[in-house]
């Protein structure tokens, strides 16, 4: 693979190319989910700072739902990443996804309770 990538003067471009080349589609799919959550969180935080934090409980639950979902998705990513296979011998990818789904459902339960 390294033979494919051209030595580039731009480190960002080389990072991007290397990411594109070396990451499996599944992980890219999780990454796009993470990016979406991050953007959603940033938008809510900006709204809170720039416009209003009232009602504060709605802000907390909306913002923490993105943060919590981000944390759960990030842990799913590290558990299904083949590069971490040695660290998570006990955890199969299916098990990791089940944990992720259960955690998310509990998270959303709390978020909607706190939202109104």
């Amino acid at each position, binding site marked *: 693979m390294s033979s494919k990538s051209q030595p580039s003067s731009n480190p960002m471009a080389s990072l991007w190319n290397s990411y594109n080349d070396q990451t499996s589609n*599944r992980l890219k799919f999780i990454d796009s989910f993470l990016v979406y*959550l991050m953007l959603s969180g940033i938008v809510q935080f900006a709204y809170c700072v720039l*416009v209003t934090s*009232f*009602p504060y409980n709605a802000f907390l639950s909306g913002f923490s739902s993105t943060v919590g979902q981000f944390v759960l998705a990030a842990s799913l990513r590290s558990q299904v990443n083949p590069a971490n296979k040695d660290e998570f011998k006990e955890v199969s990818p299916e098990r990791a996804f089940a944990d992720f*789904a259960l955690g998310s459902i509990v998270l959303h339960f709390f*978020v909607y309770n706190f*939202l109104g």
Partner: protein
Amino acid sequence: MFSIRRFCLLALSLAHVWSVTAKSSTGDSVLVVVDPKRQAQYSQFLDGLKDRGYDITFRSSKAEKPLLIEDDVPNYAHVILLAPESKNLGGKDITPQNIVELLNLKTNVIVTLSPAQTSLSSLASEFSLILPPPASPLISYFPKRDESPTLIPISVPDKSSPVLTKHIAPVWFSGIPQALGNSPLIVPILKAPAESFAGELLTQGGSAESLVDAADKGGEGLWAGSSLGVVTGFQTASGGRITWLGGADMLTDELFQKSLPDGSKPGNADLARDITAWTFQEELVLRIDQVNHHIVNTTISKELYTINDNIVFSADISKWNPSENKWEACSGLKDLQLEFTMLDPFIRTALPPVPGSPGKYSVSFRAPDRHGVFKFVIDYKRRGWSFLHSSTTVAVVPPRHDGYPRFLSAAWPYYAGAISTSIAFFLFSALWLAGDARDSRKGQKGAKAQ
């Protein structure tokens, strides 16, 4: 016709009976502890009490009965100790402890002192009154007169004490003064003249030098001047009233009638009347009939208020009217205050009288933005007046879960954020599982291909 006249006469006599019945707000039984030999000396004073409707029982200063307190219940509404010289008043019963107990039981007491030291002298200091050393009566050589320097005409300034109601002529006084301590419960009634002092009489072995010595020591041990009291009242926190008279002589018939140096009649009778009227809870007696609190524009009293509620608090206050023998609505208090406290007063506001409804005081205020257990407190303590205290506990709670506004337009970005996160989670899960299935099929194909 005849019967109507009789009825009218009956009604009149009934009204008369009503008008002379006791005017005290706490009862009409009086125990007078007096030396039987000297009882006749006080006849005008005691007859005056009887005429005002008091039911007087006499007890010899040497007798042990009737008891002041029996089975922890006071036998009399008021007690007058008119035997200042007795070393040992009636044996075991009349002790400083018992007098304090009487006051706690809301019995009112008039104590007369004398230059001789008695068991009651030590009690005076419990009431923040400091008595001069034994055998040092109040002395004044002014104005020039024929009487002994210990028999002093004291002028009574108008309105010098809330207890004294009207203009009173100078009174004859003979006895000891009291220095007044710092207690706010003291109600000074009559002060000593500025040129008077307490000391031993020169004719009885005393000397002016002791006074000079005291003055040289910066006033230490000096008993002189108008800061001394000769008649001093004291109202306990529980509402009992006690009045200390520097001497019993001022209540005698002799001094009730003795002409002043300028030939006019003395004010002793008027002063005695005012003193007994105050001490026996006829004058300056207030009470709170009821308190009421509710939310503005409603009438129902609540145990629970929500933060920032607008609350109306009202109190009905009555004053004892001794001439009508009944409680009357009193709208005259200008400086009444209401406190809304949780340890500290969060709100302290004036409680003004409501124009048009006598005796009613009302104020409306916003509850603080703080939840907890609060009290409405009225605490009105004015010198001479009976103390008003009322405390009503209510809870102030945050709004209930359905007491808040919901689905505010300002919060839509947060709602949208939370909903879109959920939708994204479901989409992600669905696609992930679909991808899983495809992968496993791919894997199977790959395996077959191998």
